């Protein structure tokens, strides 16, 4: 395992005070900023802290093409902050190159869509001039002929020569939603491609059946154990990002970062 950097997700200026405090207390080494962002004074994630650039808004796994405005903003931020890689979701966003209906749309798990995603990911990596790290959203259903979204991700990352962000909350939610084992599909990924883990809480809906990403909550012990196990065995893991929304309790934020440092450093 290489030296791990610890970070926290940045969604806007409302989080700056607690992120700055966490950095000053040596609890985080970077913030992971989610693009696109606005242009106001509250829209600068740097604060003198290293920034990893991430975008959940690009339709990398879609035949529609991508939004040039978002790509340019991400590229510019990645260059400005010298982001070691750019995180991108393996998803579609809307029926056209521009637009997002709401939450990201998981890719159709079909070899033809995988070919498109490979072509897009390669091109985006070249456009950014730095590595791309691909991430999956949480899944509620399997759409398409490939065995799973993990196989889709593994195939695309391998053929496009991309890195991977493994979001443990999304992965765990998908496994629970699709009634799979807690470690389903990890063997479909090349372990050496995983450079970053995301950690966040989960919750069920009112039906108590389906699990959802919950940035207002903390990761449970099972996800923490998985993070520790992965940190031991992934040869190129370089970063762990805690995703906790700015409106969630500050005490939880600092307590979990402290635990993360203690248990994974």
């Amino acid at each position, binding site marked *: 395992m290489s030296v791990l950097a610890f970070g926290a997700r940045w969604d806007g200026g409302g989080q700056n005070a607690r992120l700055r405090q966490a950095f000053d207390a040596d609890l985080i080494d970077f913030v992971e900023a989610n693009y*696109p*962002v*606005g*242009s*106001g004074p509250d829209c600068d994630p740097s604060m003198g802290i290293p920034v990893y650039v991430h975008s959940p*808004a690009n339709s990398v796994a*879609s*035949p*529609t*093409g*991508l*939004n*040039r*405005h*978002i*790509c340019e*903003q991400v590229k510019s931020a990645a260059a400005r902050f010298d982001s070691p890689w750019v995180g991108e979701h393996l998803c*579609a966003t*809307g*029926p*056209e*190159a*521009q*637009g*997002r*209906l*709401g*939450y990201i*749309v998981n890719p*159709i798990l*079909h070899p*033809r*869509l995988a070919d*498109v995603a490979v*072509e*897009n990911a*390669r*091109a*985006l990596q*070249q*456009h950014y001039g730095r590595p791309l790290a691909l991430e999956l959203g949480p899944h*509620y*259903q*399997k*759409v*398409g*002929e490939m065995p799973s979204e993990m196989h889709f991700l593994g195939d695309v990352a391998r053929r496009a020569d991309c890195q991977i962000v493994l979001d443990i909350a999304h992965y765990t939610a998908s496994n629970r*939603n*699709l009634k799979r084992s807690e470690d389903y599909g990890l063997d479909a990924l090349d372990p050496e491609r995983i450079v970053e883990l995301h950690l966040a809480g989960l919750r069920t*809906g*009112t*039906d108590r*059946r*389906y699990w*959802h990403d919950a940035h207002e909550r903390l990761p449970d012990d099972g996800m923490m154990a998985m993070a520790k196990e992965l940190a031991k065995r992934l040869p190129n893991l370089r970063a762990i990002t805690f995703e906790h929304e700015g409106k969630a309790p500050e005490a939880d934020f600092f307590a979990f970062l402290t635990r993360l440092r203690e248990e994974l450093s």
Partner: protein
Amino acid sequence: MTPEEILFRPGSERPELGELVAVQTIYMKLLYCEATNAAYRASPTAVLDECGLPASTRTMLPRVESDDHRAEMHGRRLLAARELLLEYPALFAAVVGPDCDAPSVARQPFFSRFLSSRDFFDPKRRLPHAFGIGQGYENASAFFFWARAHLEMGPEARQALYENFGLWLVKTARCSAVPELQRHRRGAFFFRNDGVAIVITGAGRAIEYLGVGEVGSVLRAAGLTGLEDLDP
């Protein structure tokens, strides 16, 4: 092709991807649109045929009768309802009920009609996003354009729709560097059913304007946006 040609070339210039785009479009409609789900449940091949797709593409689409698909649809409806409830509290209080929440908004038949509409699926039927990334990245303006044309409303609900949207528009314009939005910074106006003009000020307040003569022309000349004929 250069990376930029691959990423940004219009779909019309990549006919080899046309079938995949068509399949993906149906997939997205199945995630939101009850009418498409009903039609697809009744006859998948008829829906595919209508879009010029072979029956074999059915394997690329959800099993719409499954609990998993219904759960994903439900979650997406709730997220959309939550987004709109934040911006249209007075309207939803008027048309759904004073204590309505996102689940109760999501259950409304009018909400299903919105999620099935062209206003929802077509990014060009929205205003540009405040972050300078183009149209199609929020639902507040899509919902306004749809509701203005299609939602049956009494006078109170109509006033609430225009006030809620006007406040959102002015707030969004004031925090954006996008020129098409900045022109709404000075405020907006509309006419109540009784003919009185309501002005949404640049400071985000709704007030009655009791001017005389060509009130609309006066307010437009003052740089205010008329909400009744605002287009995406």
